[in-house]
């Protein structure tokens, strides 16, 4: 099944099964939509309590320094200040981290990045808190910052942590070891390239924030925007020295996440202040603080070598990828695994030699962001595919089609693709979409690079077309016990059957709260479903990341619903003397095989409540072989392809993306409208990385921590998108779905850059592409072609 517009999509699973409106395959409106448009949805920064104090954080101004003295007396003496806390006040263990507990809650004798938290204040007003921060005296002895991640790989920098500056090294050796010794000897053509990816920020709009409330039992209740409640709880409890049961976390409204809320930010800090003052404490980061308060996308330096036959078949890929993890590990080990295992791209490659390193430096810590290691590698391998096409005189789409993975192939880890992998098909689909018309006559200024700034009337503007394809693993990999828990309760209220679904799965905007309801409607045939607020009173749902929640929490909700349905069917069968195998639930009733109502749920259940809690796991994965990186480490693979069309003003280096079309296989679209929303939004973030988004770090210092200087795409930067959705069901996944959120972020960046290269003839080996890379200031580089005018005569 394929469609480009939700209205064209044939009936979904629910319709096919004669199921319930608002079920799987339908696109019901969001249950939180009305609250959000009225301004009444309670985000984590909207919370308020009587007697509440404001928390604030003092951060290191230096990327690397020894702390020789901390003096808080003057801050504490300020009227309106209730607490000033340092590392000495951390009640439990002063260390946290997603994979390695290497990060202090508050710095002790050393700071390792600019913005590292050193002290906390609770005060009666945010301004009082700010003034108190200014009164805390700290003596720093500055140290030389380690800023080049390559010094971690070659071992030339002093170690920042015990064990040295390499967080993880993943080796992929796929194919024939004899070929690996001199792979170029086995290829007709070889292309090389060095590529760089700048540090991207998730730039969610809702800043880090939350409210911590001390509880009479000595514990704490925390209301916070996060991505994984239970992992937050474990880390918070560890740092507070409390049993996990005494730390209760409830999800507050999340203003976007994109990976940046996987690590702790203000969670422990707010709890420490609340426990010390015995008052509720609210913390809200400003935008500037937010840039220092969460991890970013790893910047990458990549050296790629591709060898192919004369007819354009890949023979080998050799790559070294260095990802700068910054001061603390965060999720660097998993990001390294992704970049390594997906580093050959969505292609059949007989021989793969990849070394990927994640490093410690004194740069800002980097961790999860949508695309997670796959984004960086894709800019490298896709740039190489264009070089290869150029070298062979092939169309860039054609070289991708000839090498694209398909079901039954093996990826660079040796893992078999045992469900759809329609790479060539996706590329064909974007290639066949209509191209935007070249402007005629006098163009509308607002459609040109520079827009109403009136920088061109079309002169000096050239057009180019480029392609990108990407591959992403869905769910957690490498043998991780990746499960979710769902509690489903069916009861009768006011004569109607109603369902309550409770999970700890975090809604970040993607629509998981809608999807849980759809699944319950489909499985139980009940119209009225309420999805309870996520909190830690139910088991873990795992993280809202790796495009995994539809799969894993969706799977858990389905499984819990099926257990509830089994109980109900058994009751009905016993009571009415029917064959249970012929009964199912639909339209608020138990129905028989031909859909005839046997008994209404309200009548059958009466006062009875049927509740089941289920822990659900996807199929297991394995670890990677430490020498060869071989193993069935991933659960599912997902693919998207983009074709970008750009206009470039070559005199000023301004780029206007004119079209950004996408084809993606989503397995089964559980909520077709939300699928499109993910593809649009993910593509926009990839466009941002291509042409504007970078945290600029000089000598370990962030130069642009604001939305004035860190630019994200506006509605003027995003072109209209044509999206072609394929639904090739994955037999291993619930409903056949395939994770949707990340793939479009991966392929849009290389497509946009390829289009700019095609327009300008410049090599463009670094993203984001900046005006100075496009105007005559920089050399054109290898592979230059003569630009063709897009506008005018």
């Amino acid at each position: 099944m394929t469609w480009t517009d939700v209205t064209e999509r044939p009936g979904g699973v629910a319709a096919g099964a004669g199921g319930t409106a608002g079920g799987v395959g339908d696109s019901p409106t969001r249950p939180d939509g009305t609250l959000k448009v009225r301004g009444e949805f309670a985000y984590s920064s909207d919370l308020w309590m009587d007697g509440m104090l404001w928390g604030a954080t003092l951060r290191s101004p230096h990327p690397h320094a020894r702390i020789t003295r901390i003096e808080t007396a003057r801050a504490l003496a300020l009227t309106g200040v209730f607490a000033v806390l340092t590392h000495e006040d951390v009640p439990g263990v002063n260390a946290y981290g997603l994979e390695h507990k290497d990060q202090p809650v508050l710095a002790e004798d050393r700071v390792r990045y600019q913005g590292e938290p050193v002290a906390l204040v609770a005060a009666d007003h945010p301004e009082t808190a700010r003034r108190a921060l200014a009164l805390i005296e700290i003596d720093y002895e500055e140290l030389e910052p380690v800023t080049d991640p390559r010094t971690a790989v070659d071992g030339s920098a002093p170690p920042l942590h015990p064990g040295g500056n390499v967080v993880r090294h993943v080796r992929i050796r796929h194919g024939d070891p004899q070929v690996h010794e001199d792979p170029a000897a086995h290829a007709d053509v070889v292309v090389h390239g060095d590529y760089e990816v700048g540090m991207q920020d998730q730039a969610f709009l809702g800043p880090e924030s939350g409210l911590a409330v001390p509880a009479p039992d000595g514990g704490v209740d925390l209301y916070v925007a996060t991505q994984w409640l239970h992992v937050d709880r474990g880390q918070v409890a560890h740092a507070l020295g409390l049993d996990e049961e005494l730390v209760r976390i409830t999800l507050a409204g999340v203003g976007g996440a994109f990976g940046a809320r996987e690590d702790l930010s203000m969670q422990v800090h707010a709890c420490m202040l609340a426990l010390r003052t015995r008052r509720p404490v609210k913390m809200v980061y400003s935008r500037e603080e937010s840039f220092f308060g969460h991890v970013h996308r790893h910047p990458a330096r990549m050296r790629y070598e591709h060898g192919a036959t004369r007819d354009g078949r890949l023979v080998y890929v050799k790559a070294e990828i260095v990802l700068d993890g910054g001061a603390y590990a965060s999720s660097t080990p998993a990001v390294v695994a992704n970049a390594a295992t997906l580093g050959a791209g969505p292609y059949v490659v007989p021989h793969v030699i990849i070394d990927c390193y994640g490093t410690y430096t004194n740069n800002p810590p980097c961790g999860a962001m949508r695309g997670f290691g796959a984004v960086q590698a894709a800019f490298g391998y896709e740039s190489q595919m264009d070089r290869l096409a150029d070298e062979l005189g092939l169309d860039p789409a054609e070289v991708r089609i000839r090498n694209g993975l398909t079901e039954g192939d093996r990826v660079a880890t040796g893992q078999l693709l045992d469900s759809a992998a329609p790479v060539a098909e996706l590329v064909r689909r974007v290639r066949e979409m209509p191209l935007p018309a070249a402007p005629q006559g006098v163009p509308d200024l607002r459609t040109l690079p520079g827009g109403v700034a009136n920088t061109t009337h079309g002169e000096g503007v050239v057009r180019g077309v480029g392609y990108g394809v990407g591959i992403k693993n869905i769910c957690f990999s490498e043998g991780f016990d990746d499960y979710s828990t769902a509690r489903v309760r069916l009861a009768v209220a006011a004569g109607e059957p109603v369902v309550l679904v409770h999970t700890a799965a975090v809604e970040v905007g993607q629509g998981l709260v809608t999807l849980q309801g759809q699944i319950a409607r489909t499985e139980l045939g009940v119209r009225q479903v309420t999805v309870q607020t996520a909190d830690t009173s139910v088991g873990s749902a795992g993280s809202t990341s790796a495009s995994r929640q539809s799969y894993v929490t969706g799977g858990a909700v389905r499984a819990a619903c099926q257990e509830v349905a089994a109980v109900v069917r058994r009751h009905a069968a016993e009571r009415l003397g029917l064959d249970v195998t012929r009964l199912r639930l639909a339209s608020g009733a138990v129905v028989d095989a031909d859909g005839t109502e046997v008994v209404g749920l309200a009548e059958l259940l009466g006062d009875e409540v049927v509740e089941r809690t289920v822990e659900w796991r996807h199929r297991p994965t394995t670890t990677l072989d430490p020498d060869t990186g071989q193993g069935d480490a991933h659960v599912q693979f997902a693919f998207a392809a983009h074709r970008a069309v750009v206009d470039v003003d070559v005199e000023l280096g301004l780029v206007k993306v004119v079209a950004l079309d996408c084809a993606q296989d989503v397995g089964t679209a559980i909520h077709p409208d939300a699928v499109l929303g993910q593809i649009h939004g993910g593509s926009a973030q990839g466009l941002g990385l291509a042409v504007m988004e970078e945290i600029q770090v000089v000598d370990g210092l962030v130069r642009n921590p604001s939305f004035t200087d860190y630019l994200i795409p506006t509605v003027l930067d995003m072109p209209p998108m044509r999206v072609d959705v394929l639904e090739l069901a994955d037999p291993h996944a619930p409903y056949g779905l395939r994770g949707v959120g990340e793939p479009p972020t991966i392929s849009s960046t290389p497509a946009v850059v390829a289009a700019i290269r095609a327009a300008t003839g410049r090599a463009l080996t670094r993203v984001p592409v900046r005006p100075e890379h496009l105007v005559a200031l920089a050399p054109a580089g290898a592979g230059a072609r003569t630009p063709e005018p897009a506008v005018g005569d």
Partner: protein
Amino acid sequence: MRVTCTVNGEQRTADDVWPGESLLFVLRERLGLPGAKNACEQGECGSCTVYLDGLPVCSCLVAAGQAEGREVVTVEGLAADEALDPVQQAFVDAGAVQCGFCTPGLIVATHDLLAREPHPDDVTIREALAGNLCRCTGYEKILDAVRLAADAQASR
């Protein structure tokens, strides 16, 4: 200091306002109206957009004292009681809301656009909303919502 202004048709007073507070802070923290959002607090993202004497402004850039005696309308004041304004309804129906943090600002900006220009073309919509950042949607469904709201208003 004391600040008194009309908010969503009602006269409201906030006491003990520190003169450095923004109108956004007073609305959110003192008057119980958190609808206008605090995404950047430097006038770049538009999430805090409210009407001030009928003109859309970034309330984070308005000092609280500047609102004295003036009329403020926030996203909470666009529709009465349980009803939704056609712009609000269109954002729900078009799937233009994901995380929703940008939504209140975009709704006020769209409300203002359609009051001035009931049938804007796409280029006009894009110019009008260029000051409102959204990180989730890629803007496609926001454009759908604006078109839908324009149609809904035309047929009223």
